[in-house]
Every structure is written in C-alpha cells, then in structure tokens.
C-alpha cells in the first residue's frame, strides 16, 4: 500500500523547500509589496535617544559589519546617518571590521553628502577608518583615541583635523552608535566604552536579529536604544522619515520597509512548513498505529 501524500511530504527533498523560499522572497520583491509599519517601543526609544542629544553634538558611528550583513544593517545605517545629520550632529565614522570601511564610505556618499551637501570633511564629519585589535581598539579609545588612531583615514594627523583635534577619548562624544553584526560590535562597546563611563554619552545600537538575545539584557540600562534587524530598521525609518523627510532619493531610506514584504511571506512560508512537517509526523504515527 503506497504511503499517503501527507506522510511522503514529510520526506520532501529539501530543494523544493529552497525553491519555495526563493519564490517567497523574489515575488514580493518584484511586486514591491509594502506594509505599513507601526513603530514599537524599542525603535521609538532609539529615535528619542538620538533626539535628546543636543543639536550639533559630536557623535561616533561605528560600522561594525561587513557586506554579508549589509542586507540587514544598511537600512538602519542609512536612517541613523540621515537622522544625525538632520540634527546637525558632527559625525565621526569608524569601523572595527576590516571590510566595514567601504560600507561607511558608501553611506557617506549616498546619504550624508547626497541629503546634506553642506557637510564638509574635517569640520562636520571625519573618518577614523579601521584598526585591528577588536575590543582592544574600544578599550584604548575609552582612554586615548589619538594613541589608537594617530591619523584619520586619509592620513592626516588628528591634531590637524578640526573636528578631531581636541578628541581625547570616547567621553568626547555625546552619542555613540554601533551598527553591529557580531564580534566585535555592540557588546564590546557596552563592556569597554560604556561600562567605564556610563553617564558620559548616550549609546544606541543596531544589530542583526540573531544577536538580539545576547544584547537585550543591556537594554535599556546600558543601551538606551536598540534596533533589531530589518523590522527595527523599518520602524525606525518610518519615524525618521515622518519627522525629517529626505530631500531627494527617498528610496535610500526606505530599504527596510521594502524588505519587510519578502520577510512576511517568508515567515508565513516557514510557519506553513512547520505545520506541514508536524501534520506529516502525525499522519505517519497514525498510520503506524493502524498497522
């Protein structure tokens, strides 16, 4: 007697699952399916934390991710840079990841200089670039930034860059943002920069979804705001765009919301697969019992 379809479905070749997943992502992307986002408390807290920083403050933005995580983190990076620039903050960019530098460069070109062309290098923004050493970089920055970064990314001594000339350590920033894909990242900033001087600056982070469990214990005591994965980015984009609409190329801070369409379909597919797997298991057990 041949097995019922439901039982056979439990042993389906995984390539059919891969195909279903591919379609669930590609089709909504092509159809540009978008859903309204209702900002949740964590996204709001992140927005409010940055809003509370006085206008024109010096802020540090750490691009602690690489191209592999760009899909999940670039939307929030874009929105954060636009938000900070809309507040007139002076931004210092750096990265703890070897491949993070070009991502920061691209964000500067696509968002900062495109939306805020008045920003001048050395006065309104600067780049420290990448330094090897993982958490050692953060530890040294919390006591002596010029020792860790003798020059900026362009090779100019810090003393000759107006924005960085008087920068001694991380307490010289009013806000530190870590857009983090893993190690080193937000956790190291909390432990080695925020920990020794918890009141010196506001710390917010944007992280991948998989890191959420590890970083949630730090919210809201050590981290005043946290954006989790594309969902957090989409909610944050909604809030930022409402208060600071981009002057041109609005799609550049809309990627998070665009990606929520495929995410919804993919999640529904996963639920369907889980239910199917369990029905197949139940059918197999029932059939075995009947024998």
């Amino acid at each position: 007697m041949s097995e019922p379809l439901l039982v056979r479905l439990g042993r389906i070749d995984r390539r059919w699952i891969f195909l279903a997943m591919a379609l669930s992502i590609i089709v909504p992307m092509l159809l540009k399916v978008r859903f309204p986002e209702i900002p949740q408390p964590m996204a709001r807290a992140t927005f409010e934390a940055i809003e509370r920083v006085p206008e024109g403050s010096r802020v540090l933005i750490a691009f602690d991710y690489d191209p592999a995580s760009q899909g999940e983190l670039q939307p929030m990076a874009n929105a954060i840079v636009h938000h900070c620039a809309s507040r007139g903050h002076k931004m210092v960019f750096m990265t703890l990841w070897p491949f993070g530098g070009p991502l920061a460069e691209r964000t500067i070109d696509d968002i900062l200089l495109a939306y805020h062309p008045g920003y001048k290098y050395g006065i309104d923004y600067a780049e420290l670039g990448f330094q090897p050493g993982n958490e050692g970089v953060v530890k040294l920055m919390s006591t002596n930034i010029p020792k860790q970064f003798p020059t900026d990314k362009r090779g100019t001594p810090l003393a000759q860059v107006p924005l960085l000339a008087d920068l001694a350590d991380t307490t010289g920033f009013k806000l530190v943002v870590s857009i983090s894909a893993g190690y080193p990242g937000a956790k190291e900033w909390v432990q080695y920069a925020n920990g020794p001087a918890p009141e010196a600056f506001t710390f917010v982070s944007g992280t991948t979804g998989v890191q959420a469990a590890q970083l949630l214990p730090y919210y809201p005591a050590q981290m005043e705001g946290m954006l989790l994965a594309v969902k957090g980015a989409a909610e944050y984009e909604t809030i930022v765009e409402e208060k600071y609409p981009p002057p041109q190329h609005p799609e550049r801070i809309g990627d998070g919301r665009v990606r929520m369409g495929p995410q919804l379909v993919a999640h529904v597919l996963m639920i369907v697969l889980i239910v199917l797997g369990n029905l197949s298991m139940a059918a197999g057990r029932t059939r075995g019992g009947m024998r």
Partner: protein
Amino acid sequence: MLQRTIPIAILSISGIVLVLAYFSPFTQSWGEQAVDWFNIIAGIAYILGGGNLLRVNLEKISAQRPGWAYAAITVAAFVAMLGFGLLKLGAVPSEKYPDVHFAGDYESNSAPYGWMYWNVISPLGATMFAMLAFYVASAAFRAFRAKNLESVLLLGTAFIVLLSATAAGAYLTGWIPADSAVGFMRAERLRTMITEVVQTAGMRAIGIGIAIGVVALSVRLILGIDRSYLSKDGGAA
C-alpha cells in the same frame, strides 16, 4: 621534562600576571600590551598561513588532482588581492600627497581593489549569508516537530515570534484593545514578553554558566592540570 615545564610556566606566569594586572591602576595597561603583542604574532603568522595556502593549492594544481581548477582560481584570487592591496596597484592618488604612490586610496570604487571588493567580495559574502534563509527553512521543517511538551512550547513560541516580526502579527491581533485585560495577547506584546523576559532569563543563565566555565578552564590551564595543548612528550591527550 623541560619541554613540558617551560610552556606550562610561561602560561601560568603570564596568566596570573595578566589577571592580577587588571585590578591594579598601575598595571591595567599590561592587558592592552599583551593584546598588541598577540596582534603582532598573529600578523606574522599570516605569512605561515598564506604560505600554507599557496603550497597546498599549488601542489593540487601540479598534481592535477580533481578540482585543481578551483585551486588555480584560489591562487589567482589570492595573488591578485595581495598585489592590488599590498602594493596599491592602480590606487587613486591622494589629494594631499599626489606624488607618493603608497598614499593613494586603494579602497576607492575606481581602484582595482575597491572594484573587486564591491563587485566580487561584497556580493559573494552577501550570497553566502543569504543562504541561511534557505537553510533555516529546511532546518525548521525537519526539526520543529511536536514530540513532547517542551517541543510544543517551542513551536508555539516560534509561531508567535515569526508572526510578530512582520505585519501579519499586527494584522491578526491589532483588533485587541491595548488597554484591555487581554491586551497582552497582542503580537508585539507577546513578542516583547518572550524576548525581554523568557529569552533574556535563559540567555543570562547560559551566560553565567559560560563565564564560570571559562574560569574553570582557565584555572585548569594556569595550574597546568590540562596539558592537552602541549606538543609530544608533554601532552596529556
């Protein structure tokens, strides 16, 4: 005996010194010094690793073993990135020092290194990361089976978190008044409760266990009880 004693002595002394150095204001920078020394050693070790990579792949090419073409691609990519990166071939001249070759920007989009970064490394890395989506689906299909009470709880939690991570959760539970007695049944509230209470508690417990495990392993290594890392004649394997 010296082959065993000297490495254990080095590990023990440096371990104890660096742990105690953390607590004194006079010696707190020793730990950072040790990290610098490690980075120097690791940097020099790149030569070993790179040499090993070249040797293994060149042997494969010369012996024409199956898949030798991939070894050739590996060697070519290695040499190309090394050349364009280390020697800054094709780098965009610096504005401040246009005549100094090594002051050029090799990460710029118009430099070969930058081009390879944006058109090869970046999409390949993103592709590998994106494969996780497919593997998560197949893992969920295979592993999430309601075999007992714990797995049923796991399934229920998975459904709530999956739905609330999208607009579907808001659509399905958005009609529940937020201020009512059953307001906690809204998807975003359930998710918040699961992630901020249940998950955080579990993660903290695992984190505490990990920290204790690290201390125990460190004590074993510093006291020389665990010697499985030592070379022949010294290992306890």
